């Protein structure tokens, strides 16, 4: 009897029975778990915000909007509660740590993470003039100069597009998003299917030249290889065989495969001019300019800027040690370098003529020398012969005289 009572007591004392009875009033059922994300994320340090719009770019639900705040004099993110899906992409992408969603930032700090974004940016190395404006404009310093080229670190980029604004050349930074990539892949798939069935109609010689692949732009998506009737080597980034159908150029999402791309300057309202009175002739600007717009005058041996080639990058003005490069209107710039250009043209033509003449002169001289050498030799032989003759005669005369006397 006593033992059975003990068993009953033990049974009732067990924790699970208590939990069973208290199941409905258990705290865990109405207190959210520790890692539960309360939406929307809060703007914890608005003073740190640099208005880069990275949060807006990363949001998959388009819940973030940049609204001007009068208190802080800048654009601050405003979250739409209804759209937020608590993915915390905005918290992780924020370069200055403005946002916070519970303790998310502390929990995930230091973990490997590709910054989520809608648009991807790549620098076109063929058109880039290496002015370095993008490197300066980047708020989080992910653009670096590697082997003479500027490269955006795609994993860390937040697609704020500050570099696009700073870039002096049109379309030098190529933007591509998932949407275009998907469209192009779908199109390529259709063409590939047609190709395998054998129903693909190819217009040969639709383009003029064999296209080439720009190494830095290629994301190795393989669309061109799928579509190509000839052969493309993606490892070497070379077009091996080509029928000039132009399908790859049409379908490349980053325009990495192309024939030719011109360098077009964004700004036409200003131009740079070198003040020749201040210039010390160090030629740093000449080395810095990637567009080849700076030439060295043959008359004065000082550099000058050709307005038609200048892309208004401003690298020359920045690097100049005596600040001799100034911004003026394009008409003034043209006026200023007009004389130098004409001078150079004349000098160049004269030089070219001179070179031609010297070449001709050299040739003629050589011929003359050859001819004269021959003649000289002959004359020498003659002279020697004559001299020998004379000496002989003289000897004979002397001999005769000796005999006579």
């Amino acid at each position: 009897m006593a033992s059975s009572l003990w068993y009953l007591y033990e049974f009732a004392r067990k924790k699970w029975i208590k939990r069973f009875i208290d199941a409905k009033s258990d705290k865990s059922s109405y207190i959210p778990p520790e890692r539960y994300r309360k939406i929307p994320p809060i703007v914890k340090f608005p003073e740190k915000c640099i208005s880069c719009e990275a949060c807006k770019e990363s949001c998959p639900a388009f819940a973030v909007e940049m609204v001007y705040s009068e208190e802080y004099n800048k654009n601050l993110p405003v979250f739409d509660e209804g759209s937020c899906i608590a993915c915390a992409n905005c918290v992780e992408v924020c370069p200055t740590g403005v946002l916070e969603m519970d303790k998310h930032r502390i929990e995930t700090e230091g973990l490997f993470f590709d910054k989520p974004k809608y648009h991807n940016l790549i620098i076109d190395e063929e058109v880039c003039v290496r002015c370095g404006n993008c490197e300066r404009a980047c708020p989080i310093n992910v653009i670096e100069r590697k082997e003479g080229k500027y490269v955006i670190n795609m994993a860390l980029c937040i697609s704020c597009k500050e570099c696009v604004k700073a870039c002096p050349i049109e379309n030098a930074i190529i933007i591509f998003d998932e949407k275009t990539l998907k469209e192009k892949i779908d199109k390529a798939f259709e063409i590939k299917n047609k190709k395998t069935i054998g129903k693909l109609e190819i217009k040969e010689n639709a383009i003029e030249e064999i296209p080439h692949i720009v190494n830095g732009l290629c994301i190795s998506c393989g669309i061109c290889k799928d579509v190509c009737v000839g052969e493309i080597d993606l490892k070497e980034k070379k077009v091996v065989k080509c029928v000039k159908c132009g399908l790859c150029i049409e379908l490349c999402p980053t325009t990495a495969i192309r024939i030719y791309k011109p360098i077009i300057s964004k700004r036409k309202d200003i131009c740079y001019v070198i003040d020749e009175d201040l210039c010390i002739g160090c030629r740093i600007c000449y080395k810095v300019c990637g567009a080849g717009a700076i030439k060295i005058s043959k008359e004065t041996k000082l550099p000058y800027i050709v307005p038609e080639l200048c892309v208004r990058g401003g690298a020359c003005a920045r690097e100049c040690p005596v600040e001799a490069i100034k911004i003026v209107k394009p008409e003034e710039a043209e006026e200023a370098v007009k004389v130098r250009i004409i001078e150079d043209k004349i000098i160049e033509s004269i030089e070219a003529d001179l070179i031609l003449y010297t070449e001709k002169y050299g040739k003629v001289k050589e011929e003359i020398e050859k001819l004269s050498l021959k003649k000289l030799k002959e004359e020498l032989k003659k002279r020697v012969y004559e001299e020998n003759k004379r000496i002989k005669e003289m000897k004979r005369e002397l001999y005769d005289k000796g005999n006579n006397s």
Partner: protein
Amino acid sequence: MVKEFLRKRSIHVCVINTGGCNGCDIEIVACLAPRYDIEQYGIYVHNNPREADVLLITGPVTLQWAERLKEIYEKTPEPKIVVAVGACALSGGIFKEGHVVGGVDKVIPVDAKIPGCPPRPSEIIETILKVAPKAIAMREKKLKNRDE
């Protein structure tokens, strides 16, 4: 018989999914399960719009669903209450750019909104309990008026 009699005065809920990802539906199912047990609060998930007091709508309203949703809304007896559950039902959520009309409030008037992707079951229960009694009171009034 007994069940019907007992459920006569409970809050009748109709769950409608207008084309979402089912995440919110799973949370609603979690409400039915023993842990949250929605019936202990006198809420009865009925899934019949003709008898419902509360329409729980999840998911963005797709183009095909817009007309159907209006029909369902017209079929529910007055007074009716519409609760939009989750980010999609509020604004379209991640499906904003797809073939959707947008939030539920673009098609029918909405009384309560629950943000979250998905919201917690406790939040859903809380909202229904906050919003529904008003409707129930109105219904009682109507019934009384009819009797008189």
